[in-house]
């Protein structure tokens, strides 16, 4: 066995706190190591050539690179050794950067630790076996979960590229948050005017199949071959018959349903079409409010419907679909105002959230675009905006910035002045974050042209006095306390992840951070990929994002899917479980524990029962290997021998 070891300086990142020359010197003493050297940047092109040259000149059959994390460059170096003719699994990477040089301060201890880590990798690589991929067919259909602007963009880009798309949206219409906005910053474009055509495109595209008011029940399979169970929730209206005429909504006697689309600014009917531009424009019944469901009698809509589309007996329907890739664009939620007791916690009708104000400003909203305050429907003269209502507040567990509140607050302040010319707006802010193109000019315009008064400081309390709301806060620039008597207070509430984000992540086998936002594969270089191949991210489900960023990610995710689907066959990961039929006793414990149902029982010609791994389904977790009582099933590349070689390299040597 001829192992070559390449120790990377990584500039000063490694060599600054590790004596790399000594690591090389010690490594040369290890049995099996015939070559050990250091290099400035091993991942650079000349660095990789160095490895390939050494493989040839030193006749190496195994390679260890001691550098950064294998999560960073394992694939790079596997390709490098493969180009030089070695099997790519004859490579191991020792992580002496993230796990040593960056976290330890003492050069002496770091060097000792690095020597041992390299030794572990050498012992492991000596146990490595060549592994070979098999190829499998790709189902070139894509599932997009969530029909907000990011999801629609992804769906349209995929469909325009010729792929079949399934778009699943949990609410009755596509459009997401953007459909609820009145205008968009910094151009003051009418939001639905620019989104509407996209929504229509989604509805009319012959490559897009839209599942509105549907949710994902189950996802099985792997990249290229997913089986999806979609739950079409009961709408109690036969959408094949409903024409969206709206007569039912007019006549419905139950007038106090919560309006999800308008965030409860005003109640709606129990049978409703969420908004005039809804796609699909179909009615649905909210059984929590419908008298037919709550009292057992009514039936007005069934009587009035000209196409007899009402069906009170309707049940949820499960549809099974098969796809090859998934784009997740499930969007975001906003913090519940109840979590902000200092701002009234929802007790005061005239303290509302930014998205509610957006609906009030909107011409198709509950107030037909007239700015009135909820308590007495009077036109407000003084409006106070509170930025960072919940955001950047560690005390409620939201330390991050919600990204777009600064901008929409400036926009809403401008619109307020447009609607009510003699009004005065105040904005309490921590910092103005307006780094986008034309954004800073926009916030300046709000101040200079529209006379919006910006006060740098936080609001400590909001309370009623007569028919006014008193907003108490600090002006940290002047170092004084401020009190504003407001007619209406608008809170720029914090962006949070959806309450079911975790459940969705579980179904998709992707990870999410402490706040429930999905984790991308690399924060800089793989922003729309996840660590699960075949699953991509778009939009605010990955973190708070404004419209252009969401659209950009939607297109990016679509292009990733296109690239994935440009091949007819995909290569499987050969690091899967393998059964030794000579030692397998056929207890089939592995069959029961496998989380992927990737192991089946097989009868051999002599009638003996053994376990058999379906290679393409096996995801390579190794639960079976730890379960097997006789070591007969081994996860390739992480076999008992390989892991014990590492243990022994630390403990015994």
């Amino acid at each position, binding site marked *: 066995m001829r192992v070559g070891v390449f120790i990377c300086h990584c500039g000063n990142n490694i060599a600054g706190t590790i004596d790399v020359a000594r690591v090389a010197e010690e490594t040369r003493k290890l049995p099996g190591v015939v070559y050990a050297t250091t290099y400035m940047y091993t991942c650079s092109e000349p660095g990789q050539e160095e490895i390939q040259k050494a493989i040839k000149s030193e006749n190496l059959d195994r390679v260890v690179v001691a550098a950064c994390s294998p999560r*960073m460059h394992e694939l790079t170096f596997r390709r490098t050794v493969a180009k030089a003719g070695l099997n790519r699994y004859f490579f191991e990477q020792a992580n002496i950067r993230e796990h040593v040089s960056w976290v330890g301060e003492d050069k002496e201890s770091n060097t000792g630790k690095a020597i041992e880590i390299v030794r572990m990798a050498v012992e492991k690589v000596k146990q490595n076996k060549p592994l070979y991929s098999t190829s499998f067919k790709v189902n070139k259909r894509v599932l997009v979960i969530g029909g907000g602007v990011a999801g629609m963009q992804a769906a349209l880009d995929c469909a325009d590229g010729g792929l079949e798309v399934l778009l699943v949206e949990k609410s009755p219409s596509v459009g997401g948050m953007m459909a609820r906005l009145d205008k968009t910053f910094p151009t003051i474009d009418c939001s639905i005017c620019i989104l509407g055509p996209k929504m229509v495109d989604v509805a009319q595209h012959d490559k897009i199949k839209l599942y509105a008011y549907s949710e994902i029940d189950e996802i099985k399979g792997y990249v290229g071959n997913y089986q999806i169970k979609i739950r079409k929730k009961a709408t109690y209206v036969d959408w094949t018959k409903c024409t969206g005429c709206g007569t039912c909504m007019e006549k419905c006697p139950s007038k106090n349903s919560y309006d999800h689309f308008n965030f409860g600014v005003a109640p709606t009917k129990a049978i409703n079409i969420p908004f005039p531009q809804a796609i699909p424009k179909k009615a649905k019944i909210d059984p929590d409010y419908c008298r037919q469901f709550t009292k057992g009698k009514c039936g007005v809509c069934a009587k009035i419907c000209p196409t007899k589309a009402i069906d009170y007996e309707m049940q949820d329907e499960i549809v099974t679909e098969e796809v090859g890739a998934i784009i997740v664009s499930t969007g975001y939620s906003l913090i519940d105002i109840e979590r902000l007791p200092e701002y009234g916690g929802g007790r005061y009708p005239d303290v509302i959230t930014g998205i509610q104000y957006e609906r009030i400003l909107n011409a198709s909203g509950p107030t037909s675009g007239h700015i009135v305050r909820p308590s007495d429907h009077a036109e407000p003269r003084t409006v106070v905006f509170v930025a960072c209502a919940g955001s950047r507040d560690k005390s409620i567990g939201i330390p991050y910035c919600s990204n777009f509140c600064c901008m929409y607050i400036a926009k809403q302040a401008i619109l307020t002045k447009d609607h009510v010319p003699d009004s005065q707006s105040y904005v309490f802010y921590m910092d103005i974050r307006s780094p986008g193109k034309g954004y800073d000019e926009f916030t300046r315009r709000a101040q200079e042209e529209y006379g919006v008064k910006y006060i740098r400081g936080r609001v400590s309390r909001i309370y009623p006095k007569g028919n006014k709301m008193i907003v108490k806060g600090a002006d940290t620039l002047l170092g004084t306390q401020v009190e504003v008597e407001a007619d209406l207070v608008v809170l720029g509430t914090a962006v949070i992840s959806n309450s079911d984000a975790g459940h969705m992540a579980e179904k998709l086998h992707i990870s999410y951070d402490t706040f429930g936002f999905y984790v991308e594969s690399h924060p800089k270089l793989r922003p729309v990929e996840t660590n699960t191949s075949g699953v991509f991210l778009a939009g605010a489900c990955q973190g708070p994002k404004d419209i252009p960023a969401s659209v950009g990610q939607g297109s990016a995710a679509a292009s990733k899917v296109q690239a994935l689907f440009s091949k007819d066959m995909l290569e499987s990961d050969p690091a899967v479980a393998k059964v030794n039929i000579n030692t397998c006793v056929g207890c089939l414990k592995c069959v029961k524990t496998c989380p992927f149902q990737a192991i089946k029982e097989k009868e051999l010609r002599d009638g003996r029962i053994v376990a058999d791994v379906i290679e393409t389904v096996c995801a390579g977790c190794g639960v079976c290997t730890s379960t097997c009582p006789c070591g007969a099933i081994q996860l390739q590349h*992480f076999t008992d021998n390989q892991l014990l070689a590492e*243990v022994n390299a630390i403990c015994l040597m």
Partner: protein
Amino acid sequence: MSDVAPRELRIVGFLCNWCSYGGADTAGVSRFKQPTDLRIIRVPCSGRVDPLFIVKALLNGADGVLVSGCHPRDCHYTDGNFYARRRLEMLKRLLPFLGIDEKRFYYTWISASEGARWQQTVTDFTKRVHELGPLHVKKEVAP
């Protein structure tokens, strides 16, 4: 041929690739300083960790063993960490029968974004092992 500084003890860590190994990387990227005693072995899933690896490590010279996986319900492989939890919980009860203080073994869940939590875990566990001192069990014969 020991390269361990005299004040260091031997601590072996088994980390799952998707969460905890990523968390340790995040700690590195954020330059969260840690004691240097720990050596990390990367496994695909905490469910891959055979309790016998841990026993083997402790009998062969490790003074402490740490296992870390994805948080429950955040496993890359759905429920590998639940299998790990059952096995490791059993192991914890078995260790005293081998004459090993169960405090020398610890398992936890750390996600890829929890660099600070990883730093804390390594620091606390290293401190704990140092308080217990080196483990003296009859050395197994090297294979």
